[in-house]
């Protein structure tokens, strides 16, 4: 490990720093390096010692194919680290805004792209949300089972009594909610998890839970569900393990929708639900690919349910232990013409008993502390920008500063849409660099004694994780703490 380095001040290179090494940051770097005709020096900064952000710590462990973008990033890094035309550098374990100020970074670079994603949680803002044992945000829960060093060994999760978890509520029905439902429902199916890179300490906890039912609760109706068809299909397909789904007739039944009004994805979603809700033998062939076990063969009965038009209003806990006992919800209705959610006063509140509650309302963008002082605009959970060019608080262009991915648009969209976004923003950076004179101020970022990782360090960490995984018959065994990561490259 190298302890003292300067960001090289190569003559003739336009210098671009990217803040964050997740798909948004890395796809921006990839595009810049592949498309720029003028020589550039791209530095990707990452808060953690390890790269890839949500691809590594967000994507579900049973979706390894979604993480294949990491191969593209690795190929890109290896190629441009020793390229004749451009330069590439990865600096891990350094937080922009903390050890290195954004202000200084802007001084030293020709362009800075903010790609640090959404680092906070959207909240319910109801009583009991933060002080009840058994209530977790989706971000924390996902980071936990993916071995994120910030939370992988958090006692709140490790010491929670998983053996008492039978009924689960998930608030929100985006793909993260679906991932969480799938992982919880299949917690004891080794065939799914054994070979993945799921955190083994998390899996051990989860396996203890004798789960019976998972409710996926949306505040709007079926039409406004946020999940995509792939994730919904995966849930239905759990029936081959004896895990069955249902939707109340009030929220979904055949012939409920005038399909000519809807797009293809919705039509397919309706068909999928109609078919899977039918008895097995009566379905079209695409919906009976995997035989389902007969009820007598299923020893622990498990169900999941899509629930709609409900808003949580109160989390109820045991006064002695602070443990979650139930969730009170009020009914909603949608008011035309804009389908605004309003409380349905005619229906009485309901109380769902539950042992685990996951709030999956989406990730929230958090402004860097320096934004205020620098006059950088930030609104509705993302950096104020016009086509990726960052705006000031007074809506003028902020010189040299860009944003891509979730911190530009909010926490929506799959890796493919983040890629498109990163490419578009990359194009604008290149466009601007062509006309903009190079930074005249010769200011140099000095990493001094700041402990950090390089790309070569990551390659070593990666090899070690893959090796440890192989020994355990898994794809990879992630290091679960910063200390373990850094120790692996000490010698």
């Amino acid at each position, binding site marked *: 490990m190298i302890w003292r380095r300067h960001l090289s001040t190569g003559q003739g290179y336009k210098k671009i720093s990217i803040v964050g090494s997740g798909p948004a940051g890395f796809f921006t770097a990839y595009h810049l390096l592949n498309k720029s005709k003028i020589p550039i020096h791209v530095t990707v900064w990452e808060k953690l010692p390890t790269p890839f952000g949500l691809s590594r710590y967000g994507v579900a462990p049973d*979706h390894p*194919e*979604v993480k*294949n*973008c990491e*191969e*593209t990033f690795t190929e890109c890094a290896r190629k441009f680290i020793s390229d004749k035309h451009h330069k590439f550098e990865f600096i891990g374990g350094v937080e922009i805004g903390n050890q290195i100020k954004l202000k200084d970074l802007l001084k030293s670079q020709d362009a800075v792209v903010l790609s640090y994603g959404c680092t906070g949680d959207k909240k319910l803002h109801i009583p009991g949300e933060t002080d009840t044992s058994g209530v977790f945000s989706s971000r924390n829960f996902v980071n936990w089972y993916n071995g994120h060093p910030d939370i992988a060994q958090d006692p709140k999760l490790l010491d929670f009594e998983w053996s008492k978890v039978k009924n689960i509520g998930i608030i929100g029905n985006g793909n993260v909610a679906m991932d969480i439902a799938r992982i919880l429902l299949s917690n004891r199916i080794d065939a799914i998890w054994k070979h993945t890179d799921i955190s083994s300490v998390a899996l051990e906890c989860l396996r203890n839970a004798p789960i019976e039912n998972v409710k996926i609760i949306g505040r709007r109706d079926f039409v406004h569900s946020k999940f*995509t*068809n*792939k994730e919904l*299909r995966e849930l239905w397909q759990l029936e081959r393990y004896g895990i069955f789904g249902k939707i109340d007739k009030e929220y979904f039944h055949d012939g409920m929708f005038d399909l*000519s*009004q*809807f*797009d*293809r*994805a*919705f*039509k*397919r979603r309706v068909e999928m639900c109609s078919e899977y809700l039918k008895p097995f033998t009566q379905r079209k062939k*695409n919906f009976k690919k995997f035989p389902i076990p007969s009820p007598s063969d299923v020893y622990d009965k498990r169900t999941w349910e899509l629930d709609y038009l409900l808003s949580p209003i109160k989390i109820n806990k045991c006064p002695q232990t602070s443990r979650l006992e139930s969730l009170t919800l009020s009914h909603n209705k949608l008011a035309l013409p804009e389908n605004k959610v309003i409380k349905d006063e005619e229906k009485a509140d309901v109380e769902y008993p539950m042992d685990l509650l996951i709030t999956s309302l989406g990730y929230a963008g958090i402004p860097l502390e320096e934004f205020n002082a620098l006059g950088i605009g930030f*609104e*509705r959970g993302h950096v*104020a*920008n*016009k*086509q990726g060019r960052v705006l000031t608080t007074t809506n003028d262009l902020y010189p040299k500063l860009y944003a891509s991915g979730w911190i*530009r*648009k909010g926490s929506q969209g*799959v*890796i*493919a*849409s983040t*890629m*498109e976004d990163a*490419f*578009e923003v990359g194009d604008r950076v290149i466009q601007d660099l062509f006309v903009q004179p190079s930074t005249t101020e010769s200011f140099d970022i000095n990493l001094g004694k700041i402990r950090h990782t390089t790309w070569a360090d990551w390659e070593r960490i990666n090899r070690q994780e893959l090796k440890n995984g192989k020994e355990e018959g898994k794809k990879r065994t992630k290091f679960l703490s910063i200390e373990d990561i850094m120790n692996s490259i000490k010698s």
Partner: protein
Amino acid sequence: MFKVTIGITSLLPRRMASSSIQASTTLMRQHIFNSNTKLTISHFSTSSILRHGHLKKPVPGEELKVTFVLKDGEQKTYEVSEGETLLDIAQGNDLDMEGACGGSCACSTCHVIVDPDYYDAIPEPEDDENDMLDLAYGLTETSRLGCQVKMSKDIDGIRVALPAMTRNVNNNDFK
């Protein structure tokens, strides 16, 4: 020469999307694949295939032809072997097609629009491909994922267009 500008449909409210998909498909038929449309001179560049290791060199006499209509309307025709996917062919020839998931049908970045004359000759898409196509920008009725379409004698001469990502009027840009 013309510029294909689709992708707009993804910006419309869900309820409007379906009719505009049909509209854009009609446009496709009229513009991209109409042989009367004046296109840029097509390049025959079989030589470039040899540069790339992972594309097999076709056995003489068994070459299959595939034509890509690029985002700017230019056409490129290649001679390839049976079994190569459209994604491999495009990437092997440095065309602008990404395979973010490495060709494993887990994203929609290798979306192509197939000439309707060839569409029915390709084996039908599986559910997982359709699930991904649901998320593709500028979806048409003859859209496929490049990673799932393998060259065969049945589709010799196939023509596919790369959708242009002209999302200049994205709502987010005005936020």
